[in-house]
Each structure stands twice: as structure tokens, then as C-alpha cells.
């Protein structure tokens, strides 16, 4: 297979997939091509799609690659889809999501304790948005449900995996900056 055919093939596969396609998945589908070659093809595709004159690009999220429109076209895309605006998460929702993301697996009462606020409603909304999922029950009094973030969560925030969450150092830096602004 020539480099160009491989590149075209990989592009087709990423295009048809509605969820991120991982390298392993690509390798399983394209038989007999070493992972490194596929990776190289993807890298080339990304470089090409990031260049000007293209409305879509390949982004890395949720452990794989997926096509996405470029941010610049948001307004017209929404007009085509007849969507007024895409709602951001409420601050309560985001706070709850952050608490779950960092402390998972967690129960409702643990999340509520971190926030100091009852989080039942926020959890329900996040479940409906499929950003979190129930992974079981805790062996504790009342057998409370245990929550984790979902694959959709990674895709929603454009994270490759949970290690991509803002690190302790990044958070500390933000706190420093906030204090510096106030001082």
C-alpha cells in the first residue's frame, strides 16, 4: 500500500465513524500494516487538515481520532442545523462534573460534600447529557450509586483520556494567578 492510499483509507475510516477511532481499531481494520505507519498517515492527515482552506479537521479525543468542524464555522453550522446556540453547562453542572472527574468513582453524597451543596439535581442533568454514568453501587450503608465520567465526557471536553484533566500544577497556577490579581 502506498503512503497516499493508506492516508486516504485512514481518512475514510475516521470520517465514517461517529465516535473516536483508536489506533488499535484502525490497525485491526487495515490488516497487515504496522501501527507506526498508520500513525504516520494520521499525523500527515492532521497536518493537512489543520492547514488553511479546510473546514474540518481531525482532533484527538476520547482515545481516538474524530472529525470536527473548525471553530471558525460555528455560526453558520448552527444556522444550517437550525440551532440557536449550544448551551454551555451551568456552573453548578460544571462544578459537579469537575468534582466527579477528579474524585471518581464517587457517590452523590461525596460530590455534595465537596461542593457543600446538594448535587442530586446536577447529577441527574449530567446523566441525561450522558457526561457521567452509573458504574455500580458502593458497599456502604444504603448501597449508594457510584458515578464515573463517560466517554462522551472526554469527547465533550476534547480530552484524550482522564490524564488530560488539568493537573495539580495547573490548578495551583490558576490559584496563584487569582490571588495575584486580588492582591
Amino acid at each position, binding site marked *: 500500500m502506498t503512503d497516499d492510499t493508506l492516508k486516504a483509507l485512514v481518512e475514510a475510516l475516521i470520517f465514517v465513524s461517529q465516535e473516536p477511532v483508536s489506533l488499535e481499531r484502525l490497525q485491526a481494520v487495515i490488516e497487515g500494516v504496522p501501527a507506526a505507519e498508520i500513525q504516520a498517515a494520521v499525523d500527515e492527515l492532521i497536518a493537512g487538515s489543520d492547514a488553511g482552506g479546510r473546514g474540518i479537521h481531525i482532533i484527538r479525543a476520547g482515545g481516538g481520532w474524530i472529525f470536527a468542524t473548525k471553530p471558525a464555522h460555528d455560526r453558520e453550522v448552527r444556522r444550517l442545523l437550525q440551532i440557536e446556540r449550544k448551551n454551555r*453547562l451551568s456552573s453548578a453542572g460544571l462544578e459537579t462534573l469537575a468534582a466527579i472527574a477528579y474524585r471518581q468513582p464517587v457517590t452523590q453524597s461525596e460530590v455534595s460534600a465537596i461542593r457543600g451543596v446538594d448535587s442530586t439535581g446536577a447529577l441527574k442533568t449530567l446523566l441525561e447529557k450522558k457526561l457521567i454514568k452509573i458504574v455500580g453501587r458502593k458497599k456502604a450503608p444504603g448501597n449508594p450509586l457510584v458515578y464515573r465520567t463517560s466517554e*462522551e465526557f472526554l469527547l465533550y*471536553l476534547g480530552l484524550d483520556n482522564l490524564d488530560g*484533566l488539568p493537573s495539580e500544577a495547573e*490548578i495551583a497556577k490558576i490559584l496563584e494567578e487569582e490571588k495575584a490579581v486580588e492582591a
Partner: protein
Amino acid sequence: MTVTPAETPPLEDQPVPPSPPAEAGDGYQVRLDVFEGPLDLLLFLIRKKKIDIHDIPIAAITRDYLGYLERKTEINLDREAEFVFIAALLIYIKSQMLLPRETDLAEHEDPRRVLIDRLLEYEKVKAACSLLREREDVQILQWKRDFIPPLHGESELEPVELSLFELAESFFRIMKRREADDTRVIRGRDVSVEAKMKELTALLHERSVIDFLEYFESNASLEEALVSFFCILELVKSRVAVAVQDELFQTIRVWLRKDAHRTAAHD
């Protein structure tokens, strides 16, 4: 009570003259509902006063905190409870700090520890939130096929193509059903226990035995049926009639007692 300076942080024990809480002189007001919760409010107060989170003057912060609570006009019980809970925690911590102790407390025994830990953790979550929000703002502008909703409606069902005639037909079918379903409230005639009692005893005299289920079904409305059931209970209780059920869930046969010469109707 004797309190030595070593046991309480110096800032705290000074009697502070009652002052209008919080924003006096700050030139701006903050409404409580802009805070995500009590911890958010506490963090705000701590930062506003440039207080070290590890050495919070509990008395002063509690006063500010309660000041905000008092200025609340509307009451939302659910949220209120959470704010009051933290207020109670603050006061509890203060009371613990006032207790005289034989020896100085080690740092991990500081009654404020529990609050400090919660505040530090919450502060981190909030900071993470601002970073995650930045990501969200970028991602939300990039449309992925996964997140693209169908062009119209939110129905999960597969769209089906219909001809105009099929559409018209389903419309008429729905209208027909509506017609059949058309509910009206009909006030049933009032059935008095007294009248039913007379009717029942007369019937018992005439037929000597009544099959209860049969009789029940002949009643026009549920209300009437209920009244007749009460009547039968009443007749049995006053030993005018006997009711026998041969088997569970089978019908009940009712007849007049042979020895009962008086009837309910004469009562």
C-alpha cells in the same frame, strides 16, 4: 472562663464592635444567589479580606458570613439549609477554639482543620472548573458528528415516509378516537344509603336470595354499587341478613334471616 492567648489566635478574641456586616463601605453588593453554595461564599469572604486560608479568624468570618445570610430576602429552604449548616459548623469551630486546654494543640488538631480541608478542596475544584470551562468553550464550537442532533425534532424514532392519503387517514383515525374518548363529566344521581336499604330489603323479601355479584353489576354507577355494598354490610351487622361466600373470590349470597322480623327499612 480563662483563656490564655496561646490557645486562641490573637485576631479572634478582640471584642469587635457590632458593625453593619460585610459590604459596608465596599461600594458594591453581592447577592447570595450568585454563589454556588456556602463554601463558595466563604471562599469569597476569605479572599475579599485577604485572609490566609490556613489561619482563618473564625469569629470575624462568621460575622461576615451571617451578615450575608441575613440580607437574603427570598427563602429557598433547600439552599438555606446548606448555608445554615456551614454557619453552624463555623460556630461549632469557634466554640471548640474557646475551650481551655491543658496543652497547646498540634496543627492537625486545630478545630479549623475540617473546614480548611473542605475549603482547599473546593477551591481546587473551582479552579479546575475555570480550566474545564475554557476547554468547553473551544470544544463547543467544533461540531462532531456524534453531537449533531437530527435536523428537526428530538424524536428517537426512525422517520417514516407517508403519502398524503396515509397522513389524512391517520388524522381521521385520530379524530374518530378523540370522538370516542370525548369525556364528559356526568354527575351521577345521588344515592342515599337509606333509599338503597329500602330497595335492598324489598328485593330480599321478594327474591329471598340475592347473588351479590349479579346485584352489584346491575348498579348503574360505582357510587351506587358502593352504597349497596355498605347496605349489605349494615344489614349483616344488624343481623337482618346473612351473607355467605362459598369460596374465596366467589360471589356472595345474601338472604334474610328467618328470625328477623324487623327489617332495616323499619329501623
